[in-house]
């Protein structure tokens, strides 16, 4: 046996974000890895001399190899995870006093070719389950990921959605990104969007990553972090 241990280094504006991104990439939870902070980063003065945080994650010995890539998932694994996922969400909703129908499906592959498990919740007036800036929905998704992950012994790529909220929101965000990018190009001024959670900021960054003439950045601290769309020419 060789001592090959999986490690991953990640750079992000803050230590927490770097860890989150790295865990997401590995498909593991934070108790399955050792975290080493290589550089805490610094905000610098007025954006001058700002340095990103750098962390290194090492998968703990007793853990199976990272199974973030869909490769490790056999169809039987997937079926099993799906039934645990819908069971978990049903149990949670039941104890929250919410009557709704829960179904589960395999989502479309993302840019990295990974297929998430999507748990759909349908019912009447479930806006209470979404909450302000999807805070409640994200909490439900986070708890579900932890419970299912513990059950199957690894990280799970799982999305919890209520009445198609995430899909609608994603479409809305893409449109917003395009509109604000046009605005930035037209005026030559940077456009700052409202604060968004990491997953939503990612949609904006991805939407504009190949657009000529603008680049995107995130500024501020969670949970008030926002995307700025910056035109290549003109004032910043």
């Amino acid at each position, binding site marked *: 046996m060789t001592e090959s241990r999986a490690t991953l280094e990640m750079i992000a504006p803050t230590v927490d974000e770097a860890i989150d991104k790295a865990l997401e990439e590995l498909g593991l939870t*934070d108790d399955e890895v050792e975290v080493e902070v290589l550089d805490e980063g610094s905000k610098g003065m007025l954006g001058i001399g700002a340095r990103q945080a750098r962390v290194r994650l090492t998968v703990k010995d007793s853990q199976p190899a990272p199974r973030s890539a869909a490769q490790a998932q056999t169809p039987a694994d997937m079926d099993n995870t799906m039934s645990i996922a819908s069971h978990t969400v049903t*149990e*949670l909703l039941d104890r929250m*006093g919410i009557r709704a129908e829960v179904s589960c499906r395999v989502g479309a592959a993302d840019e990295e070719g990974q297929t998430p498990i999507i748990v759909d919740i349908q019912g009447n007036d479930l806006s209470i389950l979404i909450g302000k800036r999807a805070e*409640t929905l*994200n*909490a439900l998704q*986070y*708890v579900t990921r932890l419970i299912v992950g513990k*059950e199957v012994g690894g990280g799970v790529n799982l999305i919890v959605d209520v009445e198609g909220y995430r899909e609608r929101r994603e479409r809305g965000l893409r449109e917003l990104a395009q509109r604000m990018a046009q605005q930035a190009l037209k005026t030559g001024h940077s456009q700052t969007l409202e604060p968004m959670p990491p997953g939503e900021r990612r949609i904006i960054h991805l939407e504009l990553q190949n657009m000529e003439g603008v680049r995107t950045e995130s500024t501020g601290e969670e949970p008030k972090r926002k995307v700025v769309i910056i035109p290549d020419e003109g004032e910043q």
Partner: protein
Amino acid sequence: MKELIEYIATSLVDDPTQVFVSQRRQGATVNIRLEVSKEDMGRVIGRGGKVAAAMRSLLRVAAANDHKRANLQIVEPE
């Protein structure tokens, strides 16, 4: 409400036999106390308190359904 916290906590800890949840009403507020073994504290609190925050979010919905407010206190065994 107690059942929600009980379910989440027992699902996340290594030692579910040491999960104790109690609930006390105080007017429109329900105070919930969650006790887990010392070793499992990290699992129900999470890095930066993320798990605890998520439990409180979900608890808020459960309480609102009942026209109440809820507090969640997480304690180590004495």
